């Protein structure tokens, strides 16, 4: 599947999902996908489907849980919720990510300025 826009950096999808669930609370897969799209604006092209294998993986790791519930417009949907272990993991990944971004930043800054 060719991607016309910017591809997701490997590993970042998990971080985005966790962050979304952390800030918005329980949400179904569609909601998570939409939220990621909205947040990234037009910069990121997400194949919404890829969210599901990612959710499965996060659940298998014990970072999120899922439960069937009813959506706003009265549909049955599977809701995902971040667990305590998931928050810990999120904090860890945020930190790692910030540090990495920081380092990259420093590399790039002098040559520009």
């Amino acid at each position, binding site marked *: *599947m060719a991607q016309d826009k910017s591809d997701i950096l490997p590993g970042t999808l998990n971080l985005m999902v966790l962050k979304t669930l952390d800030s918005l609370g329980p949400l*179904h*897969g*569609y909601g998570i*996908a*939409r939220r990621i799209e909205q947040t990234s604006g037009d910069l990121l092209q997400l*194949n*919404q*489907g*890829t969210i*599901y*294998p990612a959710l*499965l*993986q996060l*659940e*298998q*790791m*014990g970072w999120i849980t899922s439960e*069937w519930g009813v*959506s706003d*417009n009265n*549909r*049955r*949907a*599977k809701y995902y919720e971040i667990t305590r272990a998931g928050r810990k993991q999120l904090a860890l990944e945020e930190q790692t990510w910030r540090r990495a971004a920081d380092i990259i930043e420093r590399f790039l800054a002098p040559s520009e300025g």
Partner: protein
Amino acid sequence: MNGLRVFLNRLRAVFFRSRLERELQEEIRMHLEMQTEENRRRGMSDREAHRAALRQFGGVEQVKERYRDRRGLPLIETTLQDLRYAGRVLAKSPAFTAVAVITLALGIGACTAIFSAVNPILFKPLPYPQADRIAMMWDFGAEGSRLYVTFGTYRELTQRSRSFDYLAVIRPWQPTLTGTSEPERFNGQRVSADYFRALGVQPALGRNFEATDDQQGGPRVVILNDALWRRRFGGDPGLVGQQITLDANLYTVIGIMPAGFENLLTPAAEVWTALQYDKTLPPDSREWGHHLRMVGRLREGVGVEQVRREIDSIAQDPVPEFARPPYAAMPNGLMVYSLQDDITGGVRPALLAVVGAVLLVLVIACVNVTNLLLARGAQRRGEFAVRVALGAGRTRLLRQLLTESLLLALIGGVLGMAVAEIGVKALVALSPPGLPRVGAIGVDGNVFAFAFAITALIGLAVGLVPALHASRSDLHGDLQQSSRRTASGHQLTRRVLVVAEVALALVLLVGAGLLLRSMQRLFAIDPGFDTSHLLTLQVQTAGQRFNAETTHRFFEQSLDAVRQLPGVTAAAFTSQLPLSGDLEDGYGVHFEWNPSGSLEAENSAFRYAVSPGYFEAMGIPLRRGRLLDEHDTAAAPPVVVISESLAQSKFLDQNPLGQRLRIGPNEGPWFTIVGVVGNVRQTSLAVDQTAAVYVTAAQWQLFFDRAMWLVMRAQGDAAALAPAARRAVWSVDKDQPIVRAATMNDLLNASAAVRRFALTLFEAFGVVALILAGVGIYGVLAGSVSERVREIGIRLALGASRRDILTLVVRQGMTLTGFGVVIGLSGAVAASQALVSLLFGISRLDPLTYLGVVMLLAGVSALACWVPAWRAARVDPAITLRAE
């Protein structure tokens, strides 16, 4: 870290696969609906909204596939899928599955059962520490037979031999326990002090025999085995040191043997006492009687051969302290065997033959399964080709086939285990009396695993061949072949296998045939008396109140009592019974008439002390003179009746009547020969040793026989008479143990038990081999006919008669059989060598047997050919040709 959690989650998913799959579908459907709605809200048309939603989602099937890969354990899921498929495939062709599974089960089961039975007897070390150092010694008897050793020989060896750590002698002892509840007679042994040390075992409780116990007039002490101690004395450890009453004497219990102790020399023995023979060796005493077994523990590093040489040199060099009578002079030294050889020697040839037979069965089973899988693989090449065309990878196909073969092997193995379980039980039930270590026989897991692995591996390997072929070969060709096959390479392999099967089956059947004919020959032998309707009862007097006179009176009264029984037409008693399998009671016989004057002219003969009427009751014919009668009492002049063979060997054609002879030691009375009777086989039907002397029990003064056989001729069923006969004996004296009761036909069968054992197994294996060979031939021909349907159709269309077609197919099958027979015959000639010691009265090359077996095989293969041939002949040329 999280590896385990993920694995467990995935494993869970394997079990909830279908529910999770439904949830995934549902979740994606929801997602798409929500996105579609959103798109509509943005003003797209219904169709447009839906298509956009799909685009935004990305490839639905790819997502699902990635999801599934992550969700469960794909390896296990595919395997389960393969298993389900394999189960369906096997269930779809029940005939093939049944034949393959039964073949596997029979091969694995029979092999496991036989090896489990044979292993403890032939191969496993005996249950004693350093059992290879235990040896048995025998004197040389007439014509190289084994003879028990004398106490004198034992004494001399204990003093002069340097080869042994311990040396011991043993004789049987059958005491009766009284004083507790009902009297019970035990099997036991009188042993010299070092018996248990020679075996290398110690009592678990109490103490061993010491030299001080084993002296003439020494203390009465016994050691009990664990089973007797628990059964009769409740396992009370306080029994050690207490006294029990055996044969009306008080014996002190000094020890209890450990629970696991196996007394291989006399497995039934439960109680032991000290031998207490006279170490001064008075001449002509029991100390010089040949009635002891001798067992020794060799010194570290001394072999059986060394012992034999040392005993030889001692034998050649007599010393004055150990003056030997001529009959115990050891002119040839002694026979020395390892304990293992000694106790298994009698059954070893039969067991080895049976092992050979079962290996043949296993090979035939393997060949048969191979053949079946090949045939099936060939038939399924079309199917494989289709699957490859639909995208199944080669490894996927191989895995599928492997799963099928494994499933087949697994079912076969489970059934095989059941067969082995039943087989072992049947073997123990069938086993000849006196088979050593029967108690140690049980299904052997190692053997099972071995047989299972071999059969399964061969099946697996062979099952893969067609798949390998299919996945490699030209797809297009195979697809075409799925509808129109021609005879190909696999047919040749299958024919070779069938030839091998026929050959192997022939070898087995010739073995079975030779044994069968031997058995017929054996039972065609006239034992010298009438064995039908004869009940025998061995009775022994026990206790001090029985001396020579009271014992004699007891047997007289018992005889009167059984004669009164309705249905008894004649009865008598005798000190030894032909074909009873008991120890033989042989004596040296000296004739007064000794024209050559040589001292060595001594005939050995069986001694029978009998009641008058014995010959009449047994149906032994009188040849000359008269039989023993009631006038031959203790007070009358001693008379003897001899067997025809003894008369012949001594007097040739002269008249033996009126001649005199002595039985046993030189001081005995002279017996006048008054009659000659027909020869009777004493040891077994196979042994032509018939020299015998008969005297009345009243005139037998040397000692008195405590144990006698009552023989009764019944009008009807002899076995039905047994309870009444027992009651009759007990009516005379209720305390007298009846050692055993058996009809003469039972004894006769028991005397041929080892041969019968081998025969039964060979017959069973032979039948299996015959069936498998028949199935093999049928399979190949059936396959060949269905592959040649078109050819047959053309032949018919071109004017061949149905008869021609029939001949064509039958000839093809019989050619295979012919090759198999020729190869099998040479195999059988070679293999029959192993059976020689089990044969009787026929050559191992007995032409009748070979001819019969060939006819049988030919008949079975003709039958196996007939069905496919008949089907071929019914082919309708119009239909076959149109079908193309």
